[in-house]
């Protein structure tokens, strides 16, 4: 700083010169420059996330209808009506079923995928790239392959099942409530496993090899090594990835929308699809917002956990 100041010891003559110098000195100050440079991002975050976020909460307390300017404040009416609505209750149960089941499977299979990839020495790059594919491809497009695979007439999965002698005849994958839920969960798991697998692989390769050697000397079994060496070492990343996946899965829209539109008989409706149907297709912005806002307490809890986890890693 002193070097910079001394080079400016003479007062500039022109007004423009003084303005320039004033700014120059200001911008050398970390605090001023720091705040100045975050203004654009704060504008973006407040106008497109913060403001809409509070709007969503506000709308949920009104009877606002899409395309109409006038609306009334109705307090908690939307929430009370939703609590009595069997479709909404079903949707909440579906969302939890969908999220918990899918995340558990993604976690389990993701660990398996990471452990497998960690052992591979030949064709490592190409295998990794191939396994990552479901995560990379736009999900709305890859889901199209799954609709075709779940087709009631020409399902290839039914063909495999028949070859194995599990079933006889046709299976209404997307026409039966229980099967439809399993189907949308399968697609979500299929898409999410590579994300878990790759993130956990990145965590696995950082585990120091001496720890395993020490465990071997102590006579630990393969399972004990996993339980007492591997798992604690990858725990921070495992937590972050799992919590992130919880949020993503809870707010999932396109997999269900494209596969079943929430049917049959609302058996696969998630918060997101029901909110879309109500607010956009049904124009009931107030009720739709209330449906979406229902996710809020869970999101806040998960985000708080997530941030704590990230800070601990610091």
């Amino acid at each position, binding site marked *: 700083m002193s070097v910079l100041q001394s080079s400016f010891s003479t007062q500039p003559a022109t007004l423009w010169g003084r303005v320039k110098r004033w700014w120059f000195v200001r911008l050398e100050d970390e605090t001023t420059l720091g705040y100045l440079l*975050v203004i654009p991002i704060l504008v973006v975050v407040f106008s497109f*996330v913060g403001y809409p976020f509070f709007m969503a909460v506000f*709308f949920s307390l009104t009877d606002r209808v899409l395309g109409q300017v006038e609306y009334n404040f109705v307090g908690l009416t939307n929430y009370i009506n939703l609590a009595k609505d069997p479709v909404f209750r079903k949707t909440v149960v579906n969302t939890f079923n969908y999220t918990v089941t899918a995340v558990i499977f993604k976690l389990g299979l993701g660990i398996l995928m990471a452990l497998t990839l960690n*052992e591979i020495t030949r064709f490592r790059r190409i295998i990794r790239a191939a396994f990552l594919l479901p995560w990379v491809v736009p999900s*709305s497009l890859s889901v*199209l392959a799954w609709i075709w695979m779940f087709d009631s007439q020409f399902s290839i999965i039914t063909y495999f099942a028949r070859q194995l002698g599990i079933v006889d005849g046709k299976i209404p994958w997307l026409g039966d409530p229980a099967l439809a839920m399993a189907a949308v969960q399968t697609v979500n798991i299929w898409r999410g496993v590579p994300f878990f697998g790759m993130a956990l692989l990145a965590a696995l390769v950082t585990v120091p090899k001496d720890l395993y050697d020490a465990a071997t000397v102590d006579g630990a079994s393969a399972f004990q090594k996993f339980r007492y060496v591997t798992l604690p070492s990858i725990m921070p990343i495992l937590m972050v990835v799992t919590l992130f996946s919880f949020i993503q899965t809870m707010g999932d*829209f396109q997999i269900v929308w494209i596969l079943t539109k929430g049917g049959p008989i609302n058996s696969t409706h998630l918060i997101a699809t029901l909110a879309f149907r109500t607010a*956009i297709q049904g124009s009931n912005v107030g009720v739709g917002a209330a449906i979406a*806002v229902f996710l809020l307490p869970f999101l806040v809890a998960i985000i708080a956990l997530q941030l704590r986890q990230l800070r601990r890693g610091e």
Partner: protein
Amino acid sequence: MAAVASATPRRSIKETLYHFKIVKRAAIILSVLFFGFTMLFPFFWMGLTSIRTGNDLFKIAKTPFAVHGVTLQHYYLLLTETKFIRWMFNSLFVASTASVMALIVGIIAAYSFGRLRYRGGAAIALLVFSTYLIPPVLLFIPLNVVVNTLKLSNNLWSLILTYQTFMVPFIAWMLAGYFKSIPAELVDAARIDGASRIKAMLVIDLPLILPGVISVFFFAFTLAWNEYLYAFTFIRSSSKLPVAVGVVNALQVGDVYFWGQLMAGAILGSVPVVIIYSFLMDYYLAGLTAGAVKG
């Protein structure tokens, strides 16, 4: 070690170890085959469906893998009879414009978060990052009203603006890590030579993190390319859809699905992101955990 193991009473241990290795190898191979099949079969099926004649398509119940005629007709019809090329250009325009905008905002914020120390800096960074965790479900209803108010409904700019919500925090977070990784001595040296902070950022920091900037740009690009909910909500007319929505919307008329064209569209629509990942996979994998480990 070998001498001990070959002594008669220990022989069984050596054998057990040998068997264990074989079992382990077999388990790994089995696992690779399992994941290879489950992860890739839908793509194989997509590809096969897209090059078969319509006749083969509906013989699946008996002979699912028999191909009697290979045809590119589905691709031809997709490119000539639908607005597919238009959708691709829409996606290209939206994804690249939105990424450039987000990159400008993101880089300067990342510099502030990663390089400068000031009161409240860490708190602001945390606030910005937490917005990345808010899923679109919570925002699409009010954003739809915002878009209508701005008279941007059914306009690609509605997507460019709303995509900033997830791109900007993502970019700022990733690049803040890159800025932090530059040794302070380099920048100090430049500053002693009389460079201002801004000049040091442009001349020293930015060239050093250029690989990071490029890879983050492409990841932001893929986020925009793959987005569905906002595009599905804000865009009405078919000619303005991005490819991730267009293929799904237009090729399913009532209950009739044009399978061959749908699969061809799904494949061609995925090509740009697959190319990006095939080049930048290592950056992506490194970035996946950078945020989790370093914070």
